[in-house]
């Protein structure tokens, strides 16, 4: 990636810190993390348990406010926004998929995807058509009207991906999207996700503990003890170092 000085990033964080108070003192969950992600770039956030990646993701998702620092999404600072503004940002500018319990159980696959457009008051004929096309592209043409309970975990994840992308958000976040999937399904889901992020020119961040999934990303950010300790931005480097690091 070319991080030139003049480049406008879809997402930029500046010295983000998140601390918690506990009986044993102050815990630095995220400590001075600065990252930049451009549109069309798919980034993996990896690190051992307790490294702060989930806290970081929560702040990027406008679900949690940093103790200090800036989180600029399309130039707007999430850190200074009140609850209402953050809800609006989540609705309009962010797409999110979670580990589990992703979908509204009483809405069918297509209704779950359309829900994002409803929330943004943008559900028209074109929107409905796009929702169906997106699901069809994700291989769910036959499952449009199925309820989440009638679909497999992989199918549900794909519906969640469609929901995260349908409203043209600037930033798409995925929290362990492959956690409940078998290897084959996991590869399929992440590959499709990466393809759509590149194709639709969104900025994408995936938190994962499964380093094999990094095969499909442009960059890997490694966090440890709340700090960003290393960035891998060469595909060969990712493949060689990260995957071999497993052994």
């Amino acid at each position, binding site marked *: 990636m070319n991080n030139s000085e003049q480049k406008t990033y879809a997402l930029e964080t500046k010295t983000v810190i998140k601390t918690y108070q506990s009986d044993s003192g102050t815990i630095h969950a995220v400590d001075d993390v600065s990252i930049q992600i451009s549109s069309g770039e798919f980034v993996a956030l990896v690190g051992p348990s307790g490294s702060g990646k*989930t806290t970081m993701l929560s702040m990027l998702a406008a679900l949690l406010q940093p103790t200090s620092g800036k989180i600029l999404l399309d130039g707007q600072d999430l850190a200074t926004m009140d609850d209402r503004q953050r*809800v609006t940002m989540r609705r309009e500018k962010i797409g999110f998929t979670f580990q589990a319990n*992703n979908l509204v159980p009483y809405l069918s696959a297509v209704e779950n995807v359309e829900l994002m457009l409803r929330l943004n008051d943008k559900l028209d004929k074109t929107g409905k058509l796009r929702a169906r096309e997106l699901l069809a592209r994700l291989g769910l043409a036959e499952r449009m009207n199925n309820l989440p309970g009638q679909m497999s975990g992989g199918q549900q994840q794909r519906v969640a991906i469609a929901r995260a992308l349908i409203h043209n958000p600037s930033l798409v976040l995925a929290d362990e999207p492959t956690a409940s999937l078998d290897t084959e399904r996991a590869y399929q889901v992440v590959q499709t996700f990466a393809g759509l992020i590149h194709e639709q020119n969104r900025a994408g961040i995936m938190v994962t503990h499964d380093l094999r999934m990094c095969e499909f990303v442009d960059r890997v950010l490694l966090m440890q003890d709340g700090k960003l300790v290393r960035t891998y931005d060469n595909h060969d480097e990712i493949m060689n170092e990260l995957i071999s690091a497993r052994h």
Partner: protein
Amino acid sequence: MRTIFSVSNYLAIKEVWRNRGRFLLVSMVIALITLLVLFIAALGEGLGNGNREYISKLNGELIVYQAKSDFLIAASRLDNNRLAAVRRVDGVADAGLFGTASANLILPTDSETLKVALLGIEPGHVGEPKVVQGQQLSTDLAEEVIIDRNTAIRSNLALGDELVIRVTQGIKDEFFKLRIIGITDGQQYSLQPSVFVPFYTWDRIRPKSEAEVNSSNPVANVILVKLSDPAQVESVKLGITNQVNNVEVASLKQAIQALPGYSAQQSTLNTQGGFTLFIGILVIGGFFQIQILQKVAQIGVLKAIGAGNPTVAVASIFQIIVVTVIGVAIGGLLTFLFSLTFPPTVPIVFNGTTSAIALIALLLIGPLGGLISIRYAVRIEPLKALGLSS
């Protein structure tokens, strides 16, 4: 705002529809509560009505009792002299003697008798109910009666028939034959079917003690008074109390409240109704609270993808309203169908106002009961709900 309502209603309706079995079950519980509340209200109205019907429909404004009778009609004794004195008071347009007694009506086809209120009134004066069929009473001594429609239904007697009354006078059972010349409607007295008899006939045939049997001086219970100007209730009341010896005067409202057991009965039934509504609040509140507890993650997802608290709250309220309205509608329909099966002897009256108040109260218990769950839903933190919090 429009988007919030449209998304909330969409989510609420979809959830109810896709889980219709579960929601219908709650609606059925609300329907049963509705049935119970409406029946208690109707029973209260029916019992109250049966108790006060004659007095509340009286074509007069005041009732004169013997002093210190505590406004109890049966405990009061007044004679003709007092009637004359009352009639002389300024502002009194008309006054009539009124006597009450219980008697047994011998039914032509049945071995059972029907207990009736035998009411002595003065023909042409205040206290004589208007007939809806037949004619009014003619003279004070005639052996003719007006009966209430309720009496006619329960005894199978019709206009022109002769009825037989059995009373105990002294130590003997006496039987009196009277001709039905008129039928009136909605004139029960103390929950008993009523028979209106000319006053002097009434005095002759009413149950008497041994001492009263040979007495020639007719004694009524109270005097019913019609005013020239109904707005002058207080001043005429004062006038009668001052000018007539040994009497006390009550307005119709006071007289109704003093009917034996009336206030206690009404307050008991109102308390029962109130408790049923309270139980309804607990049931609905409990259901929706459990429902919200089961949906924490789901609400967390909704909030995380940009549904604000207003959307979540309105969806919950709308859902509660839908379930309550369906329950109350089913309950109302069930009540109506059940009411068709009740015989006229059951004192149940579906009064428009009372039923409307009960229905409004029932529609309010849903949102009231759901308030806690709505508060809980609004407070759900998406981070915690999704397991993202550290």
